[in-house]
């Protein structure tokens, strides 16, 4: 029972890693709970805007998570 979380852009700068594996349990079984957990772990991301993809598709609301889900945190890039 596991989740994969992928970090991009400035969020990966804060987490200092590109991805992490988390156990799926009652404390992290929705997108909302996952974000709370991550914001506690990496307070800097509270100040960052990002979109969220679940299994390579952008989502716009809270969703339940199941075993094997892959969540990506996608901040906009400014550079050109």
């Amino acid at each position, binding site marked *: 029972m596991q989740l994969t979380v992928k970090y991009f852009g400035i969020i990966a700068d804060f987490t200092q890693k590109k991805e992490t594996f988390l156990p799926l349990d009652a404390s992290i079984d929705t997108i909302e709970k996952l974000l709370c957990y991550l914001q506690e772990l990496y307070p800097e991301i509270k100040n960052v*805007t990002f979109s969220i993809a679940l299994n390579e598709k952008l989502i716009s609301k809270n969703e339940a998570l199941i075993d094997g889900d892959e969540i990506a945190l996608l901040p906009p890039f400014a550079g050109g």
Partner: protein
Amino acid sequence: MKRYEKQIALSEIGTHGQQKLAEAKVLVIGAGGLGCPVLQHLAAAGLGCIGIVDADLVQESNLNRQVLYTVNDIGKPKVMVASEAILKQNPEIKLAVYQCNFTEENAFGIADGYDIIIDCTDNLIARYLINDVALVLKIPMVYASVHRFEGQLSVFNYELGPTYRCLFPENENLNALNCDDSGVLGVLPNTIGILQATEVLKIILGIGSVLSGKLLIYDGLSAQIQTIEIPKNALAVQHGLLRGIDIHQRNSQAVKSVSKIDFMRFLHDDSTIIIDLKETYEEAAIQAENIVNVPIDQLENYLEKYRKDQKIILFCRFGNQSFQAANYLNKKGYTSVFHLENGVATLIQK
């Protein structure tokens, strides 16, 4: 056509496709890390007309990635150096150069008439503006951006597809996020810029599947590419369209005029260019040190060396020619053009 024979040889392109490229008009906003490879490759491919927008001068710190520029170009306007370089590579193409930032005031004046906008900017404010302008003009926006070792790529507003706002709905943190000074691997914007140019060519040629509704993320460090599906968000699209329409209405410039008194005042202002549109053989109705005589058919050529925000006052005998010329310059993206209403005739009457 020897120049293009390797791509004409592709059955997906052929002479018909090459003709499409020759007729295409694209606008490249930003002549930096992404803009350089985009400009080089679209020019080499034989695009008919390329517009280039950038206010910046070449800096030494650009040279690790913006390979159009050389040490000798430091301090020169990017749009000038870039246009000279790509015309040298392909003298057959036409260029339109806008040495200015892409702003709410000049956006529609510049972008109107182009088939595609290519977003090579370095800030989010410009990206939202490009998105909203593209929505109003009903043209696709080919988007890319970079951060350190990573790049993002997508095509927005393509055949009513998702927009930049569907990916990133606008938020209050816009300014905080606006500047990316975290550095970038020199080769990275070139990798992404070339993918961006590829999407532009596919759209013009109508071949392959365009990267619409998908965000491609390239990570140079792990050599991995990931694609994320972007659903269309009707509210976000509408938000962009409404803002675009509002910007368009606020800035569809009525021609600005100066009064007699202000005109006389500006005769002593060296930072303003005052142009008498009379033919060279006609006698000047009024003379002053900073009045230049530029007949209307030479106006565009004459102004080439000036920035688009240069303050310009046009006048003619009765104000009709100057009105038309001011209107034309507004459309060309000049943002500070005035004309003397009713012409010099009003001055002489007293």
